[in-house]
């Protein structure tokens, strides 16, 4: 898109009135989205998004500007704008741009742009049919397919120059089942940092059936009980809990501003010694994976908590600069319209050595979570919630009846301290994580774990 000399010139304009650091992010993104509902392919959408953002950091101040005009003149214009906002001491250093080696290389076998759109539509229709064939009570099926090919050029005043291409493909299936007055839903999704080959590995028919079976089964589920009880989370439930209970709180911007309960606790015991938490942006094909983050730092694997001891936070460049250390490759942004901030990639609790079946057998009474939905956390006090999309009662060490409509709530550090069983399995789920109005693709994973007590947000019988 741009050569190094041009971008170096733009960065120098951005720094002409001063500044400690400047960077530029140029993006060209092609998207496809197909949505099917009520048995019909309702929306077929293609998008072309182009733009660039320039940032100047001066002390604690960050100035940011973006434009859709990605000609060299367009870039110079916004460089002037941010350059004016950051006026102060000007340590005019000269720099030249150089490529940065990556820690790994993703491979895209079938780029979505090379796959005929008819094939994508056929896939969506196949998922719809499979879900509808499960049960007569399936009343509505929504299938959403999306792919993105994003080309980025990133350069900064430290001399970094990176050109990267990210390809992501995903599918979501949402099923509504109804019986009389009762309506329930089932949701499944799959996606990765990969092309259309995703569907060589993921069987959409099985995925659709799974969503439909859950929606139908939920019709007969009873409301979840209310109050404190032991909770077992199965590996296949996904990783929303780790994402909310400690992931966000370990993002360095929140830590630096003391907006996290984990601030100032490096080297301290913050979780049970059964708990090791890792963020790894280099896992082949995972939805949150990256070759480079959105600041041109090579993605890496970071051990956040090791056997209960807090080892590291997740850093972008700004937070790393402030603490005199290196970015961990977690500086991410939704698009050129946003400045980068520390974000998770693929975050997981490392497997332990207990047989998952034994964990359930060892639990006399409690709630078994087989699928987690969305969640949220207040990092300042550590309170978090997540939705149970599929849950069962555990009675005398056996899986009992299905229950519906429960949110689990707890305090992050406390929940991680009291975890008393960690299974030997590991299950991933994908999601779009929101923070400061920016959504980025992530994945999370956990082994089967047991928490001796959490508050289950259920319903009490009328008194």
């Amino acid at each position, binding site marked *: 898109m741009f050569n190094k000399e041009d971008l170096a010139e733009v960065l120098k304009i951005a720094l002409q009135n001063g500044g400690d650091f400047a960077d530029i992010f140029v993006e060209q993104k092609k998207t496809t989205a197909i949505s099917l509902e009520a048995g019909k392919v309702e929306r077929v959408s293609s998008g*072309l998004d*182009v733009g660039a953002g320039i940032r100047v950091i001066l002390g604690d101040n960050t100035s940011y500007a973006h434009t859709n005009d990605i000609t060299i003149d367009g870039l110079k214009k916004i460089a002037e704008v941010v350059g004016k906002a950051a006026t102060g001491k000007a340590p005019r250093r000269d720099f030249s741009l150089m490529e940065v080696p990556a820690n790994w290389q993703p491979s895209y076998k079938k780029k979505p742009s090379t796959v005929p759109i008819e094939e994508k539509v056929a896939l969506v229709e196949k998922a719809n049919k499979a879900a509808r064939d499960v049960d007569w009570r399936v009343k509505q099926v929504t299938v959403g397919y999306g792919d993105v090919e994003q080309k980025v050029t990133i350069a900064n005043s430290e001399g970094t120059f990176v050109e990267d291409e990210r390809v992501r493909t995903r599918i979501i299936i949402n099923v509504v089942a109804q019986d009389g007055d009762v309506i329930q839903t089932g949701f499944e999704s799959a996606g990765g940092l990969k092309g259309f080959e995703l569907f060589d590995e993921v069987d959409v028919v099985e995925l659709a059936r799974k969503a439909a079976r859950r929606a139908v089964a939920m019709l007969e589920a009873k409301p979840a009980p209310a109050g404190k009880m032991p909770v077992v989370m199965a590996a296949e439930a996904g990783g929303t809990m780790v994402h909310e209970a400690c992931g966000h709180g370990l993002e360095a911007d929140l830590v630096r501003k003391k907006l996290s309960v984990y601030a100032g606790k490096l080297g301290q015991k913050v979780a049970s010694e059964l708990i090791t938490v890792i963020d790894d942006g280099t896992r082949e094909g995972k939805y949150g994976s990256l070759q480079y983050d959105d600041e041109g730092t090579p993605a890496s694997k970071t051990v956040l908590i090791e056997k209960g001891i807090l080892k590291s936070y997740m850093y972008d460049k700004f937070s790393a600069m402030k603490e005199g250390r290196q970015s961990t490759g977690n500086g991410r942004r939704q698009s050129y319209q946003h400045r980068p901030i520390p974000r998770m990639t693929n975050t997981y609790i490392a497997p332990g050595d207990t047989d998952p079946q034994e964990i359930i057998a060892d639990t006399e009474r409690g709630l078994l979570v087989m699928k987690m939905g969305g969640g949220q956390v207040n990092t300042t006090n550590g309170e978090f919630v997540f939705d149970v999309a599929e849950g069962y009662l555990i009675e005398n060490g056996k899986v009992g009846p299905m229950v519906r409509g429960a949110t689990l*709530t707890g305090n992050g550090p406390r929940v991680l301290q009291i975890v008393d069983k960690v299974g030997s399995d590991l299950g991933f789920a994908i999601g779009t994580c929101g923070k400061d109005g920016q959504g980025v693709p992530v994945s999370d994973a956990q082994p089967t774990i047991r928490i001796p007590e959490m508050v289950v947000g259920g319903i009490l019988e009328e008194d």
Partner: protein
Amino acid sequence: MFTELTKLGEETVQKAMKQGADEAESFIMFDKELIIEVADQEVENMKVAETRGLGMRVIKDGRMGFAYTADLTANGLDFVVKQALDNAKIAAQDEFNRLPQPGDDKYPQLDIYDPAIEQIPEEKKIQLAKDIERYAREYDRRVKITERCGYQDALYHVAIVNSNGINQEYRGAYCGAYAFLVAQEGDEQQTGFGLQYRLKFDQLDPKQVGEEGAEKAVRMLGAKEIGTQRATIVLDPYVATNFLGVIAPALSAEAVQKGKSLFAGKVGQQVGSSLLTIIDDGAMEGAVVSAPMDGEGVPAGKTVLIEKGKLKGFMHNTYTAAKDGVTSTGNGIRASFKGTPEVGTTNFYIAPGNTSREKLLREVDKGLYITEVMGMHTANPISGDFSVGASGLWIEKGEFVQPVKGIAIAGNIKDLLNSIDCIGTDLTFFVGKGSPTIRISRMTISGS
């Protein structure tokens, strides 16, 4: 008003028609945004942004295709026309796919563009952001951390051109002030926020925003858990607007037509307490989401959805209206040029009741005033089931006696609407959603 935007719209629509579209529409949006955030009386973040883009819908043989571009050079415009037409070949045929016709209804005249917002010098805006923080800190010395505190404004310019003869353009601007703060005492930290979005700069009140954020954070210090029980619940206006976010999709005709609304087939029936009236008003005076038209050029207007507990009707865009044989309510909403106009809300609110907030609270013998809910996005708008984390203030004999944390509240929207036993006079808007304080007679609180 015929500017560059209209020209882009006309050119692309003509091009699509020439290439074989039966109907074509271009939606063009240019916007400018400024964000200034301060912390400890210094500017921490400043953002100056311009976004431009065009979204195109075409209909061919009853099939609709869509494409968008942020590249407005010949390359991008060729892409958008070709891609929209190509996509129309694959989408399903649907006799109700159509674009609006120019109608007899007039576009409301709204005072939504105050040029002063752009003209006010940056220093004044920075000062306003700093003032918010200063008022917050002065309110209580335990307010120690500024998570985000700032000023924001946006100017936008929209054109909608379609091959049926709609050719409209309008401009708007808004500004906002916000504070997200942390109060500290010993090891404990609690958060609070205040925010205001207005159509005029001088309507922003930094003192009110700062003090509101500070008060909300400080009053949560010392929060404790409580036991599982059923009790009276009072929803703070902000929390009530969170619930409105779950109710809104169920009041869209699209959800009804697809069997995904808990209100389907209930028009004319009582679906909530007789105290409850819910309105969507795209032409509301002084409201930030007001505009003369929706995202497909249909005049904006007021739609009463629930009146005194009785379901009156649903929100429509052109497609759902055609399907039901009615007229669009002007609720074809676009999040940006990147999306198609889907049924959505404008200024969506619960009408105020006639009990003051003070009296509403004074009448509570024992209950919980909910100030924050977490995980509302996990509520199910189709079944109406919700279960959310919550915190708030315990009420005894009409007085706040103890902050409460770590609880969950659960139920079904249908029951919640039926159990409303008092609505306050204090209608408060949080951008596009508004509510007064709402009292619910009884609900399950899950605690320890």
